[in-house]
């Protein structure tokens, strides 16, 4: 379980998170919605240990993330996958080399084992046909799929998705959303997605949280959110904030 309690974070002169409380239950996709600049990506970076909170607690499986030493943090990160907005693939490696990277660098798996795991994962995301291509030669949607394969190849318990549909056309975005839902069911992973897209929340979210001014202002299942009278929630659900 991912648990954030009273997290505060100031970046420069701006107070980004102001006592954020967030619990991501096991096996579900939790969608954190909010306008640009409200601290969604900052929240993800706290969970993965890139940022440390000024105050409050960030726990993954009961372990306090900011208190971890480098080795312990590396160990924790092996339980996690992270999908960046544009995939963040290494341009000089092929798609399959990118996907294999965490296994090659961090495990003692045999080459044949790595190859099989990479092919299997690429097949799940529908990228097995483009395994030998380089990232600049494939589309934005394909880069995201490859990024997702890289996040999944270590068979993590948690996957963090940073704006998984940013810059994609609606059809491609829909495919990525379906893939995220499929990944949850296929690998039983817990997902934490940040997005400002209503469609993304509708397609992928089991629970939704709306972030505003550094804290959660509304939370619940999609059905509960439809009942909400909070103006920001209404704005998101009516599509005005998309």
């Amino acid at each position, binding site marked *: 379980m991912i648990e954030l309690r009273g997290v505060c974070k100031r970046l420069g002169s701006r107070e980004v998170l102001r006592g954020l409380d967030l619990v991501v239950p096991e096996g579900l996709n939790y969608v954190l919605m909010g306008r640009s600049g409200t601290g969604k990506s900052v929240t993800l970076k706290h969970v993965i240990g890139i940022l440390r909170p000024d105050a409050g607690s960030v726990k993954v499986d009961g372990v306090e993330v900011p208190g971890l030493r480098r080795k312990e*943090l590396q160990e924790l*990160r092996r339980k996690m996958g*992270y999908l*960046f*907005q*544009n995939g*963040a693939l*290494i341009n000089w490696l092929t798609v399959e080399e990118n996907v294999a990277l965490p296994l090659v*660098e961090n495990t003692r798996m045999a080459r044949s084992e790595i190859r099989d795991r990479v092919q299997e994962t690429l097949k799940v995301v529908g990228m097995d046909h483009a395994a030998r291509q380089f990232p600049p030669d494939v589309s934005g949607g394909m880069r995201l799929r490859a990024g997702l394969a890289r996040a999944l190849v270590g068979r993590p318990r948690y996957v963090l998705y940073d704006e998984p549909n940013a810059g994609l056309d609606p059809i491609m975005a829909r495919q990525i959303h379906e893939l995220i839902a499929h990944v949850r069911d296929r690998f039983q992973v817990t997902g934490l997605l940040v997005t400002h897209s209503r469609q993304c929340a509708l397609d992928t979210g089991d629970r939704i949280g709306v972030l505003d001014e550094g804290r959660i202002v509304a939370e619940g299942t999609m059905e509960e959110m439809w009942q909400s009278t909070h103006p920001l929630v209404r704005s998101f659900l009516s599509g005005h904030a998309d």
Partner: protein
Amino acid sequence: MSGTKPTVRGWLEPVRQAGAQVDEVLCAAGYTVGLLVRTFAATRYLPRRRRFFLDAAHAAGVKSMPVSLVVALFAGMILALQTGIELRRLGQTELIGNILSLSMCREMGPFMTGIILAATVGSAIAAEVGTMKVSDEVTALDVMSIDVANYIVLPRVAAMTLMCPTVTVVTDLVGIAGGAVVSHFHLGITQQTYWLAVRESLTSTTSILPKDVYVGLVKAIVFGCTIAIVSCSAGLRAGGGALGVGRAVQRAVMASIILIIVLGYAITWLFYFLLPE
């Protein structure tokens, strides 16, 4: 009262800005030294990085070679012409081979190669690493628990440390050859006289390499390592999209050139004044 405060602040503003600049330079220097230490600590992983190392060595050695050769040839010719005019006045033109070979090997070869590599390879490294930084690739490596110093910096530093002296040797030879052409056609020195003088200067009875040659190579090794680490550091500190990458390239080239000059002086002082024999 409130009217005087902005005036005082106005006077202090240049001091504040200078302080901020000094702070920035010190932070950058600290980060770069830390990165260098982490890179040295990761040296045992170099065999795993041989593919990237060979790519970086190809970029540093082969791709920069045409520019280095042209610059070295003409630098040697200019040096021979300028020195030859003065030597002819003194009736000492047969010394041109000695002077040219020593100048090239001691100072001009490593210095020219360093400047050329900083401008061509160093800027490319800073741009490449900076682009990786602003497009989250560096963060992605961090999230995958892959050490950036080991994965990105080590192959580039190793390649530059090896290729800078290699290119310097070629630059020295081409510069000396350029001097031979000018000496023959403009100063009337025979090829035999010239090359005998060069050999006399560049051989030693006490060691495999004369001091003038190995000090030049030490400089080239230090320059290569410096250019690579400074460029990687500038790239890794880039932020703010394409504009940030451009600034990182500018910072990398400026810092590399300044360090080449300062370290060149320091090495000369160390070998010729502190350790004269």
